[in-house]
């Protein structure tokens, strides 16, 4: 071991400047560009989207026993007339 360490000396560092000298944003707080939009109520969340003829849907869990998959297609469909309104 000692002979190898002596044979291959560690070269001096070639670094000439401190890291990050040219990087002016590291460590600084940056204001987000999307914030003014979100702060003024201009954000578009999913409930804000209103498309032409858009309908609202509701998923209804089966009551009682879960219907067998082979029978579910023949089961009478319940109609929800209100679903087309709201």
């Amino acid at each position, binding site marked *: 071991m000692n002979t190898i360490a002596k044979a291959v000396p560690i070269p001096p560092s070639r670094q000439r400047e401190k890291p990050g000298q040219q990087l002016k944003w590291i460590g600084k707080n940056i204001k*987000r560009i999307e*914030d*003014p939009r979100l*702060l003024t*109520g201009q954000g578009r*969340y999913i*409930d804000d989207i209103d498309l032409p003829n858009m309908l609202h849907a509701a998923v209804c869990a089966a009551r009682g026993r879960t219907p067998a998959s082979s029978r579910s297609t023949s089961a009478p469909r319940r109609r929800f007339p209100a679903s087309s309104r709201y």
Partner: protein
Amino acid sequence: MTTQTIAVTVNGVRYERRVEPRLLLSDFLRHELSLTGTHVGCEHGICGACTVLLDGLATRSCLCLAVQADGASVETVESLGRVGALHPVQQAFWEKHGLQCGFCTPGMLMCAVELLRANPNPDRDAIVEAIGGNLCRCTGYQNIIAAVERAAELQRALPEAA
């Protein structure tokens, strides 16, 4: 369904509409007036996202019927500032990272506005109390408290309080 005519002043504009008595104030603002800045989170008064100022008082618009606001004045987040001309409270939230997703922000802003009108120099406890009814799942509240402190500072620096 019977309807009732109401007249509500929203952000300084008078609106007259025929509404069902069951219509929530939050739905009135969002669906009838297309003011979608007011967000509906839980729809039962837990989250505070829908907070508006009703005759100057912070109110859950999801626990209030539109007909109850008949003759009243409503202020929403849209009344504060615009992109490029932010209200001091909005500016402070921007500077202090008081929001991430921004969903709770309209309610937080309206609560902050109500607080700063009554108390231009609130201490930390007063701020925590004022936003205590509003849930935020992103920030952990620390930046919101810092933002309201900063907003108070900004408003005091103005020649006249907003």
